[in-house]
């Protein structure tokens, strides 16, 4: 066993930290704020990463990547999330939209999308959840009905669609037929957001702007060229895409970073904090290390083809709970300054505020913790037979 970064991994960390230091302002807390310069920072940073082959790191050079290993990809995920994700919405391109199009796309789709994704010039949103279909995603009802002139006409509604207001494209799930099972008859469409028939309405929420939107689809026309994979067989792609997403966000990295920063950030107040709180801080650091190691093991097992889906689910349960545990510990550490609007110059306080608000969604986003538990239990009970 060897848990140290390889020289290549260490060099990648150094390179990414150098780029963040140079190109991302110290007070950057993510692209999704009321200040449009934050989004502009992220977009410029993505192009910079794209030029260096660092955005789609794992892709071969001819596709705009560096042929990086999955471990290097993990390093990049960690570094970016720890630095408040200066890739903005484009982390989704990296984590699953790009890989899914690469795997299932036609030549034309690959030519249209892969280069733009690798260059960091395009934002995608995912048209998955609906008002009646959350965890039970396969029950989705957005309908794509055959149109007399060819192709389909889409009617329905998506909800919780992150970044829809700024997205160029949507990875859209719609029902093209009603099969014997609800997983049958779903098709994936890749659609530009400028096409008539799409209306986006932001949902105001405590996680902050741009995270949640409704997307109304009313007479949206889609054709065969928009279909990713096979008509009616989109669920296969969705499962694959969600599997990519399960190890997607390295939440533990920001947790570790903020926990490590806390004593220095609160200064003299640290000595006066209750011992019980310091114990919680120390234990949270241990949990963060455990979760980082779980992620690494999952990536390692994916590489060797020995992964059990329950391993990834267990990691997801652990990482999302960690996110919320750390949020509460940090809020306690900053004491009364947790509320009432942190002074803008105090970046750590603002980071804690941001972390707590975003962490509330951790056990829901990309599959609720309850669904992960179902997956773990099913696997364990099946294995016992």
């Amino acid at each position, binding site marked *: 066993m060897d*848990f140290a970064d390889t020289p290549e991994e260490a060099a990648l960390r150094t390179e990414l930290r150098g780029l963040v230091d140079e190109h991302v302002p110290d007070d950057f807390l993510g692209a999704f704020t009321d200040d449009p310069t934050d989004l502009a920072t992220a977009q410029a940073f993505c192009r910079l990463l794209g030029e260096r082959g660092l955005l789609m790191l794992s892709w071969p050079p001819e596709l705009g990547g560096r042929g990086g290993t999955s471990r290097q990809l993990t390093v990049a995920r960690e570094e970016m999330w720890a630095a408040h994700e200066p890739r903005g919405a484009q982390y989704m391109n990296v984590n699953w939209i790009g890989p899914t199009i690469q795997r299932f796309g036609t030549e034309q789709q690959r030519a249209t999308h892969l280069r733009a994704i690798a260059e960091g010039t395009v934002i995608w949103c995912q048209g998955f959840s609906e008002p009646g279909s959350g965890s039970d995603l396969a029950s989705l009802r957005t309908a794509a009905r055959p149109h007399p002139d060819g192709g389909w006409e889409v009617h329905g509604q998506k909800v919780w669609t992150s970044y829809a207001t700024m997205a160029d494209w949507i990875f859209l799930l719609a029902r093209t037929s009603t099969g014997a099972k609800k997983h049958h008859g779903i098709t994936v469409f890749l659609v530009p957001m400028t096409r008539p028939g799409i209306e986006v309405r932001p949902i105001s929420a405590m996680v902050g702007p741009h995270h949640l939107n409704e997307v109304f689809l009313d007479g949206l026309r889609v054709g065969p060229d928009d279909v990713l994979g096979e008509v009616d067989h989109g669920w296969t792609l969705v499962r694959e895409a969600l599997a990519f997403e399960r190890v997607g966000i390295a939440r533990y990295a920001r947790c*570790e970073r903020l926990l490590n920063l806390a004593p220095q950030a609160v200064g003299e107040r640290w000595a006066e904090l209750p011992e019980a709180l310091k114990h919680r801080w*120390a234990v949270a650091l*241990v949990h963060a*290390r455990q979760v980082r190691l779980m992620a690494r093991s999952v990536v390692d097992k994916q590489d060797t083809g020995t992964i059990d889906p329950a391993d990834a689910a267990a990691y997801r349960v*652990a990482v999302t709970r960690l996110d919320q545990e750390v949020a509460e510990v940090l809020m306690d550490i900053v004491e009364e300054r947790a509320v009432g609007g942190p002074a803008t110059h105090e970046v750590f306080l603002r980071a804690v505020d941001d972390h707590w608000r975003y962490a509330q969604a951790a056990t829901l986003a990309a599959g609720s913790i309850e669904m992960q538990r179902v997956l773990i239990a099913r696997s364990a*009970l099946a294995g016992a037979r």
Partner: protein
Amino acid sequence: MSVQLSGEAVEYGQVVDKALAAAGGIELARAIDGGRGDRQAWAAQLDGLGVWELEPLRDDAELEAAATACHAAGRHAAPYPVAERLAAGATDGPGAVAAVADTADPRVNHADLPLNWAVADIAGRLAPVTSGEPLGGRLGRFVCLVRPGTWSAGDSRLPALVLTLQAWTLLGMLDRATELTIAHVRDREQFGQPLAQFQTVQFALTEQIVANQGLRELAKYTLWSVGTGRAAALTDALALRVAAQEAAESVFRVGHQLHGASGFCDETPISWLSRYSQPLRRLPWGRSESERRLLTHLTEEPLEGPFALEGARA
């Protein structure tokens, strides 16, 4: 660069596990506790497998083999100081080493066994000990009061090694407790269906599984850290101990609850795993003291990792 145990180490653990299972498994722990078995005879079953010839600090292969042997012993409730004997190694010097708290009357599990015991403090100093007879009691029948002799310089890696191997033993107990719980909820029927069909039961099971998985990954990391001989290994071992104690609380709580009343009975294996886990969890210190010690170490030496403070972006 793999983050998994070597295939040889995994296989070795399986061989030890099978040997202990064939000899009677947890039933032996029950017999020994009832005065119908002998701890040294239990250990002698491992003679032919080379367990007692292992030198964990010699190389990675022996270190990993020692860890999987401890894990296998834990799966059978280990009525013997496997981790402590392995930590001492097979060469000259003490035959078993336990870490002790700096209290007036330190306690060591199985210290009455003729193993040429020594105790280590957290700095790695060693002292021979004289031991009293086992104190008895339902939780840790073989825990003894010991009196340390003269302290002298020892191998500074020893405290981290023994704490880590003890955590591997505990992990074996937790893995087995979870397996037993899964088997029980599949077999036991209430309201006309197996307990496993109830989602509330399934969710409780996932507490065990997630706890075990998190502990296993940390146990591998800490083993690697100890093997490198780096100074951070002691802090890492304290972190592992904190995690192991926390996981044990969670896993045994769920295990007892889902076993129902049968889980407390002497005829039920989880009852013995639970009892025999207690000395590992309470000695040399319980959970709060482990956390306090970890906290003290952290103020001087942060947990290493990519986001430790050095170079962190403010």
